[in-house]
């Protein structure tokens, strides 16, 4: 009997989730990727360049750091995977490095991307500058107004930022606009999706590029503890790319408990939430069958979270499957709780996390871990971009 796997299957599904629900106009684009992504990324020359850039440009491996004071506070063994120390300040760049190399191998000379808070936009603009490739980033008009520093960073890096003015003018609309651009430019353009969402092969491709996170955790834990797996891995989930990265090598390891932390916003039943596993129903968004926040009529609704990186109305199909199958433990954390957890991490460990990441730290108030258990938390991004939100919230 084959061992149960939580990885993607040959048709691009995770259980019942995933696939490629795309208009025919996108068929050649995704087919080109589907046919080539495994072959290209397994070439020795590709792997060498990818690893070299991750090391010399991104600054990998990122440390696995034992958070002593936080561990004392919660009476367990807490390790932080320091993705916040990556160039550009978050894990997002692991994926954009991989995809820009793939785009080059495919002979593409133009890159498009969507961004919500601007982190993925900055990570994409960064690698485009590095490679000298034209870059267009779609961003909701509302997000452009509330994330001015990241808009400026993208412009500094030479990218064109285009406002998505349709629909709710936020991340899902920026994604729609990027997909439309790809429909209009099917031959020369590669679309760098920023999370484990979208049509197959994107969820698997992005997860593979992010899997370097858990690959490092394995040898780092082995050096520290003589065993290469923790008892729990914890990550925040919006679309779910940092979570996919830290879960990846433990997906089929039953010794490891997988914990996914979603944004409850003002409360799961408040009408202002982004807790997709609790509120979503099976549906189709951006080419993928997954759990999705929507009306009874099947219209996609606008989620809410204080953190712009978690307010996506869907979730990657890998995570939908982890939830539905019970493999993952899903917890939702409110704005207030995330903000206080972010402050606590700052004061106890001297690390100001991104507000997205702060959600993951709030679980230590919700769950009890044993004293000798090892809990690895993906510290997916730093909080510089969120300083104004912290200032306003705490009246600093």
């Amino acid at each position, binding site marked *: 009997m084959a061992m149960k796997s939580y990885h993607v299957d040959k048709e691009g599904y995770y259980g019942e989730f995933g*696939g*490629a*629900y*795309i*208009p*025919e*106009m996108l*068929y*050649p684009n995704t087919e080109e990727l589907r046919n080539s992504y495994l072959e290209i990324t397994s070439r020795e020359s590709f792997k060498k360049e990818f690893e070299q850039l991750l090391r010399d440009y991104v600054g990998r491996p990122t440390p696995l750091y034992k958070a002593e004071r936080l561990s004392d506070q919660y009476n367990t063994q807490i390790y932080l995977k320091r993705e916040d120390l990556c160039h550009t300040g978050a894990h997002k760049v692991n994926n954009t490095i991989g995809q820009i190399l793939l785009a080059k191998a495919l002979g593409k000379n133009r890159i498009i991307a969507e961004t919500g808070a601007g982190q993925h936009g900055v990570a994409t603009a960064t690698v485009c500058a590095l490679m000298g490739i034209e870059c267009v980033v779609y961003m909701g008009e509302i997000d452009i107004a509330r994330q001015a520093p990241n808009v400026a960073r993208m412009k500094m890096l030479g990218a064109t930022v285009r406002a998505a003015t*349709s*629909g709710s003018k936020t991340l*899902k*609309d920026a994604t*729609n606009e990027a*997909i*439309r651009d790809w*429909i*209009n*430019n*099917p*031959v020369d353009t590669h679309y760098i999706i920023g999370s484990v969402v979208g049509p197959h092969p994107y969820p698997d491709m992005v997860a593979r590029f992010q899997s370097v996170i858990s690959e490092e955790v394995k040898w780092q834990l082995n050096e520290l503890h003589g065993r290469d797996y923790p008892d729990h891995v914890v990550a925040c989930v919006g679309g779910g790319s940092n979570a996919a990265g830290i879960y990846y090598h433990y997906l089929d390891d039953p010794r490891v408990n997988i914990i996914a932390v979603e944004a409850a916003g003002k409360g799961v039943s408040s009408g202002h939430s982004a807790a997709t596993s609790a509120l979503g*129903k*099976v*549906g*189709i*968004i*951006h*080419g993928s069958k997954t759990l*999705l926040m*929507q009306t*009874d*009529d*099947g*219209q*996609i*609704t606008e989620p809410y979270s204080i953190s712009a990186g978690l307010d996506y109305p869907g979730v990657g199909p890998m995570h939908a499957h982890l939830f539905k199958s019970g493999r993952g433990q899903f917890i939702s954390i409110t704005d207030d709780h995330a903000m206080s957890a972010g402050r606590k991490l700052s004061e106890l460990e001297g690390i100001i996390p991104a507000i997205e990441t702060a959600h993951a730290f709030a679980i230590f108030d919700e769950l009890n871990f044993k004293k000798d258990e090892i809990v690895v938390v993906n510290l997916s991004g730093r909080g510089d971009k969120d300083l104004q939100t912290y200032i306003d919230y705490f009246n600093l």
Partner: protein
Amino acid sequence: MNRLTERLSAEGKILSIYATAGFPQLKDTLQVLKELENAGVDLIEIGMPFSDPLADGPTIQESSTKALMNGMTTELLFDQLKEVRNHLSIPLILMGYFNPVLQFGVEKFLKKAAEIGIDGVILPDLPLEVYEREYKDLFEAYGLSMIFLITPQTPESRIRQIEQASTSFIYMVSTSSTTGAQEGFSEGSMEYFKRIEAMNLKVPTVVGFGISNASSYHQATSHSKGAIIGSAFIKALSKEGIEGIPAFIRSIRSSS
């Protein structure tokens, strides 16, 4: 033979109009359809509004947003159309995105559509493979024709697959674009029309995207059975209202 295949096999080119349900006003749906038939349109695609219409340009998205704000839903559309066959005799197609159909229930959707006299369905984001694997039998059971799209980038082998799965016509997307993105056709588009014509497909093709006036209509139909007008019609409807429909259709049919 049903209304759709009968009209497709009859003489003459087909003018098909896309009209967003519940637009401009919620209760305009039936009136718009009646005016279109009276004006001599051969086929109507009734657009089911969706919050995130990936394959559409700004004009159709705005009309969808307006229709949703007006209160349009799948349930309400079926209610508005329940006596449509007392008023219209031309073939009618429902066009929309897959998610609202999935939430309504695919079988329930097909059953209702068949009951009120719908002839075909276009769901651009329900791909051929998933249709064949999961829904083909249901479509056939309810006698509804699924209409697939091809584009200038669609490889010949895939066009042949789509041909095999098609029971009425193939929706030929004129260029690599979203709806309403351009005006008039380039030489490249005309070459593509000829290339597809030369394939002698067993079902006719109807060209959509980028047709806005008499000249682009005649270009599009010179190598295909018909043409579909969406964005240009929505624009005219927004500007001139329902009373302007006959004049708009006359302007398309006039020889250029």
